[in-house]
């Protein structure tokens, strides 16, 4: 059984929680409150992850820390052909978006942690970086749609690339970054929300079910 160290408001934990639910992998939650108590800095948690960061999973003794490595671990183990890529270009493409998600966390996420968790950051720099990344992602998805693709990778099934980026995009307005200039990102958010076993978190709302003919 997996033990999942998480915080209810952490967007990186949300990415992992989404995949756990979509894969229907059983787990037990262990909540480590980031704000305001900063329980992640306690020796008890540092013994599990010396970086003192969430998310972390402990899969019967295999400890993995960080959203991207956990997504890779879970998807490669439980859904290699669908949620995780196995062929060469797709592996590189997944890695591209996992890296991009880290950059979103450092800009969009930093702005959100600044506004809601009082984590000091250079807000104008975070917004400038966020705009650059969100514009690139929006353009990528617009051209994906033009080619009949719904997801970040040109595959019929979504991948961990989508789940890694989604939390940052859907929570960006909590960091004072409007999604209004990014229509393709908003449509993609609707599509993610309609995936089976999708789960909300505070600040994330469901969309209407798809039209049935």
């Amino acid at each position: 059984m997996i033990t999942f160290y998480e915080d209810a408001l952490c967007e990186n934990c949300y990415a992992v929680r989404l995949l756990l639910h979509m894969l229907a992998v059983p787990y037990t939650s262990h909540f480590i409150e980031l704000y305001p108590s900063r329980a992640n800095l306690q020796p008890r948690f540092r013994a599990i992850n010396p970086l003192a960061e969430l998310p972390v999973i402990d899969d019967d003794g295999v400890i993995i820390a960080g959203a991207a490595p956990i997504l890779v671990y879970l998807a490669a183990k439980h859904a290699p052909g669908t949620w995780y890529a196995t062929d060469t270009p797709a592996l590189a493409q997944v890695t591209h978006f996992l890296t991009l998600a880290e950059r979103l966390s450092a800009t969009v996420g930093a702005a959100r942690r600044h506004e809601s968790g009082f984590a000091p950051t250079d807000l104008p720099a975070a917004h400038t970086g966020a705009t650059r990344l969100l514009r690139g992602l929006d353009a990528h998805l617009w051209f994906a749609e033009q080619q009949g693709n719904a997801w970040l990778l040109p595959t019929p099934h979504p991948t961990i690339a989508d789940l890694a980026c989604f939390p940052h995009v859907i929570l960006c307005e909590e960091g004072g970054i409007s999604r209004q200039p990014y229509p393709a990102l908003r449509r993609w958010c609707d599509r993610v929300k309609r995936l089976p076993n999708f789960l909300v978190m505070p600040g994330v709302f469901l969309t209407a079910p798809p039209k049935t003919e």
Partner: protein
Amino acid sequence: MSAHAWHPIAAARDLPPRHVFHAKLLGQELAVWRADDGFINVWENRCLHRGVRLSIGLNEGQELKCQYHGWRYASRTAGCTYIPAHPEGAPARRIANRIFPVIERHGLIWSALETSPDDLQTSLPPDPLVLREIAIDAPAAIVEPLLAAYDPPGHGPRPIFFIQPTDSESCVIRGVVPEPPPTGALALLRLHDAALCALRDVAEQRPAA
């Protein structure tokens, strides 16, 4: 930049079924959604109850449901049809959201802030190639001369451009290619996209006059 004139506010394909599009025109936020019967609603982006943006609401096909307390508004009239806190009573007829005129034409969705503008006059074909919209953090007045000097990449056909003034500090370039070549549409879209993104860089670095 008249409130009485038609402005493009979205591309037709921005309105897939069961989606609510978040638009902005001349500082006015709009919730734009296509009902299941194809009718396009352009409403003030604000629930009459608590003021929450309707663009985060649910497009349920014939009604838009507010995310906050579930007030429902009917397609076409924007009249409130149901208030969950008062399940017994029909909402008063006067509870209706503000609606704006709409035309779907040339692959674009057009609206105006004041009602009853004259019919939209363009000489475009019905189904041109619609470029990706480019949102710019610079006023329309800065973008206008840059677009006038736009040199189509690859000596291709020159697109027709419309500038959607989102507010006094930002705008959106919406371009259409009237007679696209029979093949290579994707490559053409990418060429114009790259050129317009470069134009945006110039516009955003230029101080407002």
